[in-house]
């Protein structure tokens, strides 16, 4: 999916507006990143897991990944 924004939060707001249920799968009730989810911007994990304030560029690639765990 494509979107725009200055920060990860702004970008995901646009993505989640198109699919509201997706938000509950990636973020928790308070808007923080779920503990076994990872968000990477241009290959680097974001630092702000609560407010998602990490910057994104116009051509940035953002990955949302599951951190595999459990048995």
């Amino acid at each position, binding site marked *: 999916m494509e979107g725009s924004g200055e920060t990860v939060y702004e970008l995901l707001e646009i993505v989640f507006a198109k699919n509201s249920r997706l938000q*509950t799968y990636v973020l928790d009730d308070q808007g923080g990143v*779920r503990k*076994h989810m990872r968000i990477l911007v241009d290959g680097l994990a974001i630092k702000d897991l609560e407010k998602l304030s990490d910057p994104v560029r116009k051509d940035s690639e953002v990955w949302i990944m599951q951190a595999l765990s459990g048995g």
Partner: protein
Amino acid sequence: MAGKILVSTRKGLFEIGRTRAGWAIMDAHFLGDTISLALHDPRDGTDYAAFHHGHFGVKLHRRLKGKKWVEVTTPKYPEKPEGLVDLDGWGKPVKWTTQMIWALEPAGPDKPNTIWCGTMPGGLFRSSDRGDTWELMESLWRHSDRNKWLGGGADIPGIHSICVDPRNSNTVRLAVSCGGVWVTHDNGLTWAQSAHGMKFTQGPASEKESPDGQDPHMMVQSPSDPKKFWVQHHAGIFKSINNGEKWTRVNAKPSSFGFGVVVHPKDADTAWFVPGIKDELRIPVDGELVVIRTRDGGKTFKSLKKGLPQKHAYDIVFRHGLAVDETGDCLVMGSSTGNLWVSENQGDSWQQVSNTLPQIYAVRWA
């Protein structure tokens, strides 16, 4: 006899039914996903399944009678006020996020479509539209004594038992691990502690008898004599014969430690438990799995073992892993090692349905 059993496991939800050859697995849903609990609402035939997904968090699915499963809304906590210091009984910050659905109950015959939902970290929710929308019981969540609640076996506190009073559905009692027993008489507007008399056997005197720190593992209310309650507590078995106003200890052999309890729907003095050795040794006594049954209100207990493994059995039955049907004759029991048994004679003998299921969290007659 109810015809179906919902079995919630670490890797899916299974439906068990009775065939001519005996009880058998009839269907499997959500394979690979962790289901913490399921509810069959006998008022309208709706089924609910609570997901405890490792990556995506808690989710709730619903199946209207004769329809397919669909995802509905998960109970959600409100935004935590900026700067609020909200610590649990351990002194750890409370995260305002639904971390597990640990109780689902119909709200009573006069409140169709309404269900209660107990969660970790301790919020109680109510839906009046079968899970489309949810309302947090703010009065309980913002009660100052909630900050005394703490995690027991889990890291955070949670509501696992919801008893809607058959005499008046505005009266609801909850059991919290660890937070005692809470009662409302006005459909959730106001709440009061009701675990007086429960006590731990060890610890500082100030802590042992504090109602807010009690760890009732499971609480059930007698449908036939609703002033009577049974609790399997972390530190033994307790009963109340006066609406939970006062609790007294009951001693059982081979042990009073365990998680689940069920009461006979037509006889308040008949109840079943599944003992383990003790809290720091959670395996059956001598590797022999037994169910214990009292028929005299806890004065005596009988060990029921016919059909259950009596050698090297290390099954633990979790708090929602034991259930009785509406006749009181049929019991179902699922264990931590994926064994599932049914009894059709009040526990006198047991038939093994499967020994290859995933770890079983909850069983429910449907």
